[in-house]
């Protein structure tokens, strides 16, 4: 095929938008003398139907094989004119635009100078157009399944939405049950719904949904591939309980020699469990798990004469021979919903969390106020949780009367590296204060705060209500909590009245903030996610792509992306689900055309491009070069997003970004620099 460039140049008047300051006729006349230009025209509105028709007819009649449109910004009409070319059966990437409106006629007044600049811009476009290549947009199929990492409310909601749309979901949860943090909460602010009441049905749905494969007590080991075609490897850890046989009756746990002797994760240390356990009564799946680090039989190889659980289990579900199992499957999209950690209050030693048993965190209080909690909803402090070790019989318990909350513990605090606001503490503090007053009507509750942020729907109203109920808000950030006699003393300054305070209380509740999970690194390494400054996972765009990540087909939901409350989490989970459903339901994804490609003959295999690529889209592969096995770069076209960072990193120019190749840009430089 004779592919000698035959270029058509179309200079747009844009009414008077361009013509007012640029001599359009002169530009078109000038362009007609440029190399390889076959036709050069001006027209009032190139983007109009007649304007586009002009191009199409010239392509047909004049045999044009490159088109330069000098008009508005390509950000405005590049797609329009690409379509025009396609309609005339010319490869759409044979288009080059010269921006003579936004970057010329609109920003200059001097007609002569603007015209000269427009000529240059057109010439640069013509010189580039001569070297344009036809490009293909390829599509790849999409595996109609989704992996969701994390079985908290975000993961649950996303799983249900996708499963209800008819697509397979693999929901992977690290702990033995789904439910996440929400399952630990008593009531939810500001409406005071019972957390378990609204969560449990969703958990049950997830557990029984035909489209959802629940992989609890499991961890994702490896992810490779790209949007539409991710290969997933999941490790199902051994539970030592046959899931099919276990009826969840719980006799094993009652019989276990360690019953009541192991601190329960679910109760955040406020209650205990056995070595074989169900994390909490509503757990889904309602199957028991043996803690391999605590079980006497598993750690010592011996548990009395025979393990009591084995003896107790009528269906014979206990299986100490069970091994970890690797499950492999393919998905088209991934949702990361790995949640958060609560701030470790011991990192603020001035508040005495490690030292005094009546300094507790808000999550611990959450368990105390919960009717299903270890104290059955009674606020009883001093069960010998920590610190001052006492023998069982010496333990004194009491119900506190003077209660203080300290807000922003681990949030908005540069000394612990968390500059951000955790967004939920103000409101859960109000909620807990309210619940405390409900339980201990004669209590005096105050809240030490920096600012109260009651921004959400019904938040301000709830905050008002709690204050009217008698909760005192004292503006001041306590500097210290120490013991004096039986009491705890909070040292602070009321910053509204500038008076120092020494406040004697029975209970201090630290309103701890939300932090990125300790194991976030593993997820980052698996998916090559980025972190924002606050160390939470970074979204593709803070405004316009808040659930997307830099990797196509990978979405974020919930607190892994940043602190948020339950409604926001659910909203984002639904957003992530609908984003994932896009490619799943269309069954195919388009692959960028303007991507990088490697000249294998000159590639040296240094790997600079591999290191540079933000999308892990390049890898080194071994090829046979005239009998020698050499290493060269290879672009995964589905992963490449066409940024061109690799092209600038390559010393030998062996990897080039299509449409922005060195040989296409250098003539532009020559024209713009030299004319």
């Amino acid at each position, binding site marked *: 095929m004779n592919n000698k460039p035959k270029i058509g140049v179309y200079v747009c008047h844009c009414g008077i938008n361009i013509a007012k300051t640029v001599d359009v006729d002169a530009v078109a006349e000038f362009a007609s003398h440029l190399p390889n230009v076959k036709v050069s025209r001006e027209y009032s509105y190139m983007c109009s139907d007649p304007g586009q028709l002009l191009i199409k007819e010239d392509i047909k009649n004049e045999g044009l094989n490159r088109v330069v449109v000098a008009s508005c910004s390509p950000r405005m009409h590049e797609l329009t004119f690409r379509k025009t070319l396609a309609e005339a059966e010319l490869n759409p990437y044979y288009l080059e635009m010269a921006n003579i409106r936004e970057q010329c006629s609109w920003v200059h007044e001097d007609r002569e100078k603007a015209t000269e600049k427009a000529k240059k811009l057109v010439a640069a476009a013509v010189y580039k157009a001569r070297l344009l290549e036809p490009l293909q947009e390829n599509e790849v199929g999409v595996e109609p399944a989704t992996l969701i990492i994390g079985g908290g409310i975000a993961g649950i909601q996303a799983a249900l939405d996708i499963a209800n749309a008819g697509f397979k979901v693999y929901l992977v949860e690290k702990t033995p049950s789904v439910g996440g943090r929400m399952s630990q909460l008593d009531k939810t602010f500001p409406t005071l719904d019972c957390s378990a009441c609204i969560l449990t049905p969703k958990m049950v749905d997830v557990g029984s949904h035909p489209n959802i494969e629940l992989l609890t007590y499991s961890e994702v080991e490896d992810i490779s591939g790209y949007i539409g075609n991710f290969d997933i490897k999941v490790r199902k850890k051994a539970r030592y309980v046959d899931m099919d046989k276990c009826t969840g009756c719980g006799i094993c746990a009652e019989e276990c020699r360690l019953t009541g002797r192991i601190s329960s994760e679910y109760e955040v240390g406020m209650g205990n469990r056995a070595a074989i356990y169900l994390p909490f009564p509503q757990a889904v799946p309602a199957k028991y798990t043996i803690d391999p680090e605590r079980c006497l039989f598993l750690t010592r190889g011996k548990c009395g004469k025979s393990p009591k659980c084995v003896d107790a289990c009528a269906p014979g579900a206990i299986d100490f021979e069970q091994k970890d199992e690797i499950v492999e499957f393919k998905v088209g999209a991934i949702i990361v919903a790995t949640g958060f950690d609560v701030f470790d209050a011991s990192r603020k030693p001035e508040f005495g969390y490690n030292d005094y048993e009546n300094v507790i965190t808000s999550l611990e209080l959450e368990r105390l106020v919960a009717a299903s909690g270890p104290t059955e909803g009674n606020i009883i402090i001093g069960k010998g949780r920590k610190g001052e070790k006492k023998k069982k019989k010496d333990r004194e318990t009491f119900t506190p009367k003077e209660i203080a909350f300290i807000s922003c513990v681990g949030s908005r605090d540069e000394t612990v590296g968390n500059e951000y606001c955790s967004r939920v503490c103000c409101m859960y503090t109000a909620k807990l204060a309210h619940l405390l007053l409900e339980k201990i009507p004669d209590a005096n509750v105050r809240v030490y705060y920096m600012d109260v942020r009651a921004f959400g729907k019904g938040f301000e109203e709830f905050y008002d209500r709690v204050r009217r109920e008698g909760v005192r808000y004292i503006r001041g950030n306590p500097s210290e909590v120490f013991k004096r006699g039986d009491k705890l003393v909070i040292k602070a300054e009321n910053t509204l009245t500038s008076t120092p305070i020494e406040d004697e209380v029975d209970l201090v509740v630290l309103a701890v903030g939300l932090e990125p999970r300790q194991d976030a690194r593993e997820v980052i390494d698996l998916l090559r996610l980025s972190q924002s400054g606050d160390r939470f996972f970074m979204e593709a765009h803070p405004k316009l792509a808040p659930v997307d990540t830099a990797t196509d087909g990978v979405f974020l939901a919930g607190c892994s992306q940043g602190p948020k409350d339950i409604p926001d989490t659910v909203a984002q989970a639904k957003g992530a689900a609908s984003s994932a459903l896009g490619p799943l339901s269309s069954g195919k994804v388009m692959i960028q055309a303007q991507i990088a490609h490697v000249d294998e003959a000159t590639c040296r295999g240094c790997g600079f491009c591999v290191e540079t690529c933000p999308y892990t889209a390049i890898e080194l592969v071994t090829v046979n070069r005239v009998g020698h096995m050499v290493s060269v770069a290879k672009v995964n076209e589905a992963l490449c997003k066409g940024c*061109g960072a690799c092209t600038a990193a390559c010393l030998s120019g062996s990897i080039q970004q299509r449409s922005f190749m060195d040989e296409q840009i250098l003539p532009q430089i020559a024209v713009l620099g030299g004319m």
Partner: protein
Amino acid sequence: MKEQFEPNVVAFLCNWCSYAGADLAGTSRVQYQPNVNIIRVMCSGRVNPLFVINALQQGADGVLISGCHPGDCHYIEGNFYARRRFGLMKELLDYVGVDPRRFNMSWVSASEGNKWKDVVEEVVEKAKEAGPFEQFRRNKINW
């Protein structure tokens, strides 16, 4: 006459921030000097540092690279690579005696039409002060 000298500046703008910012300047009808000619690239990380040498050699009196503010890169980290590369290039050019006013880099976001104008004014002013760069120009030497 010095004040007659109209410098020629070649600018490389990333599509998502700076090019959009320059478009915004246009949409807002902000007026600035016509001495800056823009080459659009997808990311400032695409700009081969050798383009700068080439532009100066091909007759540019100044070169500008403009990208997204750190953290805003459409491609996550392209502008970080650009920043490192051009930090080096700036030092190199300065060292061999190329007037430092000839090479500039800026962060201009899609919302900073006015900043784009300020950058253009500054870059053109600096190039004017530096004067025509004939010494390095390809077609002025032994031609």
